[in-house]
Structures are given as C-alpha cells and as structure tokens.
C-alpha cells in the first residue's frame, strides 16, 4: 500500500441499537419484542466517533462511518456526519440479516478492504444489544490488522505510523503501541462526544452523503454472510430477572451486616477474595 499523504483515513464502526430497557421477550412466542423500542447510536460508538474526529481535527484526513444493518439505521448514522464525519457506508441487505459475530466481522472487514487505504478502524467496546465485544478483535483478524481493545485514550503518530492506546488494568493502566493499520475499541464514556453541529445538518442529510452497499455491491462470499455464515444459533430467549434495583435491606450487628455485604460483594466482584 502506498500512502500519498499523511492524512489518515479513519473508519468508525457504528451500530444502531434499541434502548435496552425497552426491549422485551414476548413470554408466549419467546421472541424479542423490540418493535416499540426507541433506537439510539450504541453509546460507546459515539465515543469512537469523537476520537476519530479529534484525530481529524489534528491531522486532517477523513472519517468514514461504517455500519451493517437495516435501512432504518440511515438517519441515525447521519448524525455522525453532523458531528463532523465525512461519509457513511451502510451495508444493508436481507442476506446480511441474522449475522453472528463471525459473519458480522467478515462483512465489515470486506467493506473496510474496499475502503482501503485505511489507517485506523475504531469501534465501541461492545454493543448494548449483543454485547459480545468480539467484533473488534474479529475484524482485526480478518483484516490482518493490529489491535488494541478497551482503550480510554489514544494518540496517533502519523510520521511513525503508529497508534498508542491506554487501557485500564487491575490497579493501574498500560499503554500499548501498535503500527498502523489497526483496530481500536474504546471504553464507554471515555470522552465526551461533541454534539452535532446544526450548521452541518442540512449537509449531513443530503442523499449523496450515504452509500448503501448490498451484498451484490460487495466482494463477499455468500457462504460467509448473514444467517448462512453464522456458526452460532440462538436456541432460547428469556426475559432476565428484573433490571430494577433490588432494594433488599440487610440487618444485624455491624459485624453481621459486614459478613452479608462481603458475601454479596463476592457474588458480584469475582476478582476479589
């Protein structure tokens, strides 16, 4: 690959998700009922967009938004344009439907290939729906790119063609550096995404800002996409026990209460004694 300029091409993977608290499992059909649920951009993906825009503020270059999903994603993705991104690529086709992480990462990777030269692919740490967190490493593997996951700060060096990411570890942090091109996943809430700019909005909503690719527009092997390309199968769905606060009152002497609290802490905090 030759790089004509020092201006990076940044690709941000953005998913549109239903508001988690509005999704139900229909007790009869055992299917997901997300019909009435409002959608939003997966929150950490906005943090990823913000990092990309900060890099663009500093080095120039361009920010492409990449998403795989149904056509209704489109207006949401345009919000990223109104924040300052340059173009949206939406991969939309019935054939892409029902994809698990293997098929999703394959499809996204084929799109990134088509967008090359690419310097950095940014993802959120995980989606609020599937929440596997496996898309960033899977994408990196298909592409043969380096990866740093779960970072809360990044720094690009365009002259050395490297990127550094800071990630928290137990009781401290580490800074990793990898050569470009690379895939980064960012922690939820690690920066404050800029609000969309009303001056960009009319521009962002012009039709030509979004390119929709169907399976036939892309170089994809039909065996690797959508339901057909997904080795995993969902065999059951259930509503989880309530997400509301439990409001359980513990009582006893300070020592007794402390024992009970320690037990609760052990349940929810596996890494401590």
């Amino acid at each position, binding site marked *: 690959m030759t790089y004509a300029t020092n201006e990076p091409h940044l690709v941000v993977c953005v998913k549109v998700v239903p508001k988690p*608290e509005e999704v139900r499992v229909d007790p009869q059909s055992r299917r997901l009922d997300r019909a009435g649920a409002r959608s939003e951009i997966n929150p950490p993906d906005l943090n990823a967009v913000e990092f990309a825009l900060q890099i663009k503020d500093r080095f120039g270059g361009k920010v492409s938004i990449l998403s795989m999903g149904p056509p209704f994603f489109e207006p949401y993705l345009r919000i990223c344009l109104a924040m300052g991104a340059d173009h949206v690529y939406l991969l939309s086709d019935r054939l892409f439907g029902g994809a698990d992480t293997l098929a999703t990462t394959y499809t996204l990777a084929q799109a990134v290939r088509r967008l090359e030269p690419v310097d950095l692919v940014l993802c959120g740490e995980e989606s609020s729906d599937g929440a596997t967190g496996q898309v960033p490493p899977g994408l990196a593997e298909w592409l043969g790119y380096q990866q740093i996951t779960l970072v809360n700060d990044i720094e690009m060096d365009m002259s050395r063609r490297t990127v550094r990411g800071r990630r928290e570890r137990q009781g401290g942090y580490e800074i990793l550096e990898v050569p470009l091109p690379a895939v980064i996943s960012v922690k939820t809430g690690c920066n*404050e995404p800029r609000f969309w700019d009303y001056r960009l909005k009319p521009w962002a909503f012009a039709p030509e800002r979004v390119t929709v690719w169907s399976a036939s527009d892309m170089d994809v092997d039909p065996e690797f996409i959508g339901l057909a390309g997904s080795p995993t199968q969902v065999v059951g769905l259930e509503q989880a026990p309530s997400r509301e606060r439990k409001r359980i009152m513990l009582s006893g002497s300070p020592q007794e209460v402390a024992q009970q609290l320690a037990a609760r802490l052990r349940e929810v905090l596996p890494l401590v004694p």
Partner: protein
Amino acid sequence: MTQVEHLTVDDARWDTLFERTRGAVALCYQCGVCTALCPWGQVREGKPLSVRSLLRRAQLGVPDDHEDIWLCTACAQCESLCPRGVPVAEVFQSLRGMAWEERRVPKGLPSVLWSIYWNNNPWSQPPSHRSRWAKGLEVPRFDPSEHEVLYYVGCTAAYDRRAQKVARALVKLFQAAGVRFGTLGDEEPCCGDAAKSLGYTPYFEEIVQNAAQVFAQNGVRRLVATSPHCFDTFRNYAPRYQADFEAEHYTQFLDRCLSEGRLRFSREVPLRVTFHDPCFLGRRNDEYEAPRRILDAIPGLERVEMARSRQDALCCGGGGGRMWMETSAGERFANLRVQDALATGVQVLVTACPFCIACFEESVKAVGAPNLRVMDVAELAAMAIE
C-alpha cells in the same frame, strides 16, 4: 478606553450577534446598572460578573472566550432595571451559541444536549420511565374530548425524586378541585429550556417546534406546567413557532380554581412560611400574586416576606443552565437566599420551581439550618385539602 485599541474587532461577529439578538445588543449605552445588580457581585467579591463590559466587548465584536459568559443565570435582575431594555440573558445565550460553534463549551454540556436528543430529557434518564412518578395515582392519558387541560409535568418533576413529590401533590389538588386533566405520559416532549439556556438556539427551536406539534396532534389547547421554566418556554417562545395553545403555571391555575370556588382548603396548616419568587415566574412572567394568594388561602398558615422579594427577589442560582454546571461552594446564590429566609424566622421556605427546591435544600444543609424546611406551594396546598 485606551485598552479597547488592543482588541481585535470582528465585524462579522458583531453582525451575527446583532442579528441573533434582533438588534438588542446595540441598545446598551454602558451605564453599568446591570453589573451593579447582578447577584454574582454578591458572591464573588472583587470579581463580579461584569455584564456591562462583556456587552461592550460583544458590541465591538471582540471574540469572547471568556468563561464568564456561562455564569448568567438568566435571573433578569439586571433586565428589570436596565434603562435601555436590553435582554441581557438572551445576549449571553447568543454569545454561548457562538461558543458552541467554536467548540469552546464547558465539559458536561454536550452530554446534556445529547441526553435531550436520545432521552427526551436533560437528566440522562430513560424516556420509557417518564411517567413512573405517577405510580399508584390515577393519571389518565390526555384526551381533548374529555379533559379541560393538559398537565405538563416536565422533565425535572418527572424524574427528580424530590420534585416528583410536587407533581404528586398537584395531582391530589387537581383531583380535589375536580379538574378534568390528563398527561402525555411517556410521550410528553421536553420543553427545551436547557438547550435554550445553554445557548444552542437552533436545537432549542427544533425542540419547541416539535413540542408544539405534539401538542397540536394531541388536541391540546391549554396546558398547566409544574416548572416556571417550562411555562416560560411555552408562553414566550412557542408562539414564535405558530403554536396554538395557552400555557399557565400551576400556581396561576390553582389560584383560579380557588377564586372560582372549585378548590377549597379545609385543613389547618399552622406554619410560618416565606415565599421565594422563582425568577421565571416573577421577573420573567410578572406573576407575583398567584402563589401568594394560594398560600394566604391556607387556614392557619402565616406568611411573611423576606427583605428582598417580588421584583427584588434573589435568584436561587439554578436558571440559565446553571443546574448543569458546577458552582463553587462559596458562590451559590442559594446560600444567601437561605440566609434571607432565616432572617425572617420562618419554619418553611416556600417556592414554586423544582430548580429552586434543589438549590435551597442543598444550601439549607450547607449553611447548617436543619430547622428550615424547603417546600413547594403545591405541597403546602395539598396539606390543606380533604
């Protein structure tokens, strides 16, 4: 005046500001009354909010990245006596608007706008929980063929557990007065006051327009709001967007219910209270008497005035978007206002705005006045029924 020569003057900036304030910024003739009246002068010794000089800089088109433009609480103290009728708070909002365009905004504020965008409220609360405040109460969905008014709860009363008590008290009062009312439940739109106060006007306009549309679709002709901030938006801004409904603050509505004999207070509430005029009810909308008449109708209740009241009431510090910005401990107007209340020797500091309640309750603890309670007019009124 020699300093002025060092400043870079930007004509385009001036033009923009002139346009956005519809010429109002030009009116100022630099008398300085505003600086003298602004409450920031009472909490920031030696470095008041120099309204006059900020206006001068604005008139000159000096690019202003001064953090002071974020201080204004939109209390209208200065506006009420400005000899030139300058809408100072709006000028500050316009300056903030330019700061947004230049991406020089205090941390945390973009998140407030995002929250309105995704959640339909500035408090980062789930939109599907909006009507939870009414749990266990009989609160029907608004139906124009059945209901005389829409009760507009507003984001703060819907989500802030303290302010929810006010909304619940109001429901009790409406029911006692036989008011046929409904709410829009989870579909209730945000009024956009936060976006307006923080100066992101184009988005504010979108929000109000949307709200007006939702009201029209639901056949709303009259609404009653919990918060003076929502009331102010709907009364003074919505009409700019062809809105076809009337907005009232709940104190005005209850006051009418009293005078029409629909609402009667029968129980004694033997408390000594003083009423604090919320800026957005008093100075901004000239409503000083309705809340007082309600309080005076409560049997056994004794009401006294603070030294500064009505037009001179001191702001709580929560307007102008300050609810979403940190104010250092020594600079909270509410601390002074609580002292004003303590000086009257009352048991209860009464107000009629959820922002005032939040600010005062915190200050009551900060100044160590455990015996002074902070209550809403609606809560006292609800104590006086059945």
